[in-house]
C-alpha cells in the first residue's frame, strides 16, 4: 500500500499531508517565538531600565531589511503562482529573486552584528542586547534554513517538476508558507526590538 494523500487532498479534511504538516510545524514555531516574546515582555516589564532600541540599533538598516524581506515574500508567492500558471522560467526567476533577497537580508544582518561587536556591544552587555541577539540570531537561522530549502527547490529539486508537477507545486507552497512565516516574525521583531 502506498501512503495516501501525499499529493491529492483528502475529501473530508480538504487537505494533503504536506499542507497540514507544514501548518502544524508553523504552530510549533509560533510557540517557540512566543516563548521568546513572552520572555522579552516579562524581562522588560520587570527591568529597572530598558534602553530605547533605536538608540542602540540602526533603524534605517532594519527598515531596509524589512522591505527586503517583505519583497522576498512577494517574490516567493509569485514563484508559486508561476508554477500554478505552468510557467517554469518565471518560477525560476522569482525563486532566484527570493534567494537573492534573503541573502541580502543576511548580509545586512551580518553587517549589523559586526558593527555591534566592533563597538564592544555583546549579548552580555545588557538584557536588551542579549534578547536582541538571541531572537534575531534564531530568526537568522530560520532565514538560513529558508535559503537552503529554496535553493534546493530552485536548483536540484526542480527536476521533480517534470515528473510530478503537482507534488512539486505543493512543495513550493509549503516552503512558501514557511518563508512567509519567517517574514511575519520579522514584521513583529522589527518594531519590538528597533522601535520601542
Amino acid at each position, binding site marked *: 500500500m502506498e*501512503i495516501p*494523500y501525499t499529493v491529492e487532498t483528502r475529501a473530508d479534511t480538504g487537505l494533503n499531508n504536506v499542507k*497540514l504538516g507544514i501548518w502544524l510545524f508553523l504552530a510549533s514555531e509560533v510557540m517557540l517565538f512566543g516563548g521568546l516574546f*513572552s*520572555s522579552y515582555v516579562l524581562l522588560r516589564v520587570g527591568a529597572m531600565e530598558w534602553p530605547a532600541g533605536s538608540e542602540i540599533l540602526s533603524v534605517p538598516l532594519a527598515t531596509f531589511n524589512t522591505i527586503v524581506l517583505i519583497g522576498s515574500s512577494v517574490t516567493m508567492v509569485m514563484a508559486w503562482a508561476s508554477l500554478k500558471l505552468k510557467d517554469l522560467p518565471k518560477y525560476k526567476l522569482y525563486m532566484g529573486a527570493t534567494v537573492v533577497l534573503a541573502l541580502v537580508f543576511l548580509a545586512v544582518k551580518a553587517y549589523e552584528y559586526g558593527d555591534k561587536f566592533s563597538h564592544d556591544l555583546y*549579548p552580555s552587555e*545588557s538584557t536588551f542586547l542579549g534578547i536582541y541577539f538571541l531572537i534575531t540570531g534564531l530568526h537568522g537561522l530560520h532565514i538560513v534554513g529558508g535559503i537552503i530549502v529554496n535553493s534546493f527547490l530552485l536548483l536540484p529539486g526542480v527536476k521533480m517538476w517534470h515528473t510530478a508537477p503537482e507534488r512539486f507545486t505543493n512543495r513550493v507552497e509549503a516552503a512558501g508558507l514557511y518563508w512567509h512565516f519567517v517574514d511575519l516574525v520579522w514584521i513583529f521583531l522589527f518594531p519590538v526590538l528597533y522601535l520601542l
Partner: protein
Amino acid sequence: MDNVATVEHARAEHEAEHEHELGFWQKYVFSQDHKVIGIWYAITALLFLLFGFSLMMMMRWQIAYPGQPIPFIGGWLGDANAPGGIMLPEFYNQLGAMHGTIMVFLGVVPLAVGGFGNFVVPLQIGAPDMAFPRLNMASYWAYFVGGIIMLASFFAPGGAANSGWTSYTPLSVIATQGQTWWLIGMTFLITSSLLGSINFIVTIVQLRAPGLTWMRLPFFVWAQLVTAFLLLLAFPPLEAAAFLQLMDRLAGTSFFLPSGLVVSGQALEVSGGGSPLLWQHLFWFLAHPEVYVLILPAMGIVAEVIANNTRKPLWGYRVMVYSLVFLGFMSFIVWAHHMFMTGMGTLISAFFQTTTMIISIPSIIILSALFISLYGASIRFTTPMLFALAFLPMFGIGGLTGLPLGLAVADIHLHDTYYVIGHFHYVVAPGTLLALFAGIYYWFPKATGRKMNDLLGKIHFWGSFIFINGVFMPMFIQGLAGMNRRMYEGGRAYQHVQDVLQWNSFMSWSAWGLGLFQIFFIINFFMSIWRGEKTTNNPWEATTLEWETPSPPPHGNFVTPPEANRGPYEYSVPGAPSDFTPQGQRL
C-alpha cells in the same frame, strides 16, 4: 480474512520482494517503516528505563545507608563521584537530576509515544505507515543522539547536570558543564518530539481508513492525538528557555540572573536584570502538559486492554473522548501550581488553584468510566489485563494525592516533600509503567508473531505490583511528616522526621526487590522473541484494526485495504455469532 494460507503466502511474497529492495542497513537501522522504528524506540526506551532505575537504586542505597560504601558497584564509580564507594552529595544530585530526566524524556515518553504510538497508531487506523516515514526516522535518530549526549554528560568535567530535572535557575546557570550538555541534549529531544508530534497528527487526521470516523477511533488513538498536540505546542517554549539558558551559560547574558548576586562571597560579574522565575514559567509551561503526555498514552493502553478483556464496549466512550480533549486543553493553563511557593498573590494563585481543580474533573470522569466498564463484564485475567487493572487504583492514588498539592494552602506543608514524590510516582510508576507493561504484553504478539510467557508474566506482575507499592506508599507518610525531597542523607539531619526515617530502608529494599522482579520480564521478553509460542493474527480476539493484519504485519501493513464499519469495541454484541465483531468485518 481468516484465510491464513493466502495471507501467509502474500506475506512471504511481499517480504521476498522487499528483501531485494532494501539492504540490511535500510531494513533495520535506517528503516523508515513505522513498525521497525517503533520497535527501535521501544527497545531504546526500555534500556533507558532500566538505566534510570539503576541510578535510582544507587541513590536508594545512599538514602537508606548514608555514608556507607555502595556494595558491589561502589568501587566502579570513580573517586570524583564516590571515593571509597561512598557517594558524594555532588554525585547524588547528578543521579537525581538524571533519573528524572531519563525517566521522563528518554524512558516513558519515547516508549509511550515513540514506541507504542509508532507501532500501534498506523495499524489501528488502517494506514500503510506514518504520513512522513523519513521524518519518523529523523525523529528517532534525534532522540538517539539526545540520549547519547545525556549519557555522555556523566563524563563531562564536574559530571552530569545536577540541578534537578527542573534545572531551576540561577542554580543551573552557575552549575558545572554537565548542565550545558543537558541543555543541548534537551534540544535534540525536543526536536525529536516536535517532528514526531507533527507526524502523528497528520497521520491520524489524514490516513484514517475509509469509514474510520472520529467516534470510531480506538481510545488509544485519541490519546495519542491529544498527546501529540501537547508535545507540539508545549515543547517549543522549553526550547526557547533552553536557548536562553544556553546564552546565560555560554554568552554571559543574564536572562535568569537578577542584579546583585553574590556566589561564595564573590559578586557575580554579569549585567544582571534578569528574572529567575522566568525559567520556571517556561519550564512548567512544558512540564505540566508533559505529565499528561506521560499519562494519556497509558490511559489509552489501559482502555484498549480493558475493553478487550472485559469482552464489552468501553462504558461512556464518547464522554471519555470529550474528557480527554478537555484535559489536554486545560493542561496548558495550570502550570503555575508547581510555583505556589514562589510568592504568588491571591488573585493569580486563585486562578491556578481553580484551573487545577477543574482539570481533576475529566480525569475523574475517565477513571470512573473505566471502573464502570468492568460492571457486567466477563473478565479474563490475562497478564496484560492484570497490569491494566492495577493501573486503575494506582493512578487513582496518584491522582487523588494531586488534589492537596493543588490547593496552595495545603501545598505549604507538602511542597517539595516526599508527598510530591509519592504523588507523581504513583501516577508515573505504578500508574504509567504498569500500563506500559500491559501494552508490551498485549501487543508483543502483533510485533513478533509470538506470545510472551504467561507464567513469567504473572510473576512479574505480582512482584512488581507489591514492591512498587512498597517503594512509594511510605513516601506519603514521610511527606506528611514533612520530609524534604532531594535529601542526600535521606533527611537524617532533621529532628521532625526522625520518626519516619525507618521507612527509608524499607523503601530501598522494596526498590531493589522491584529491580529483581524485572529480571523475569527481561528474560521473558528476550526469550519470547525467539522461543515464544507462535500465535495467530488475533490471539486476544480483539476488534480493532491492528488485529486484522498478519503478525508481524508486512511492510505496508495491510494485505487487503482495511475499512471500518463500526465502533472500536463491539464485543458481545447481542445476536452476533461470536463475542467480538471486528471493526473491519463487513456489515
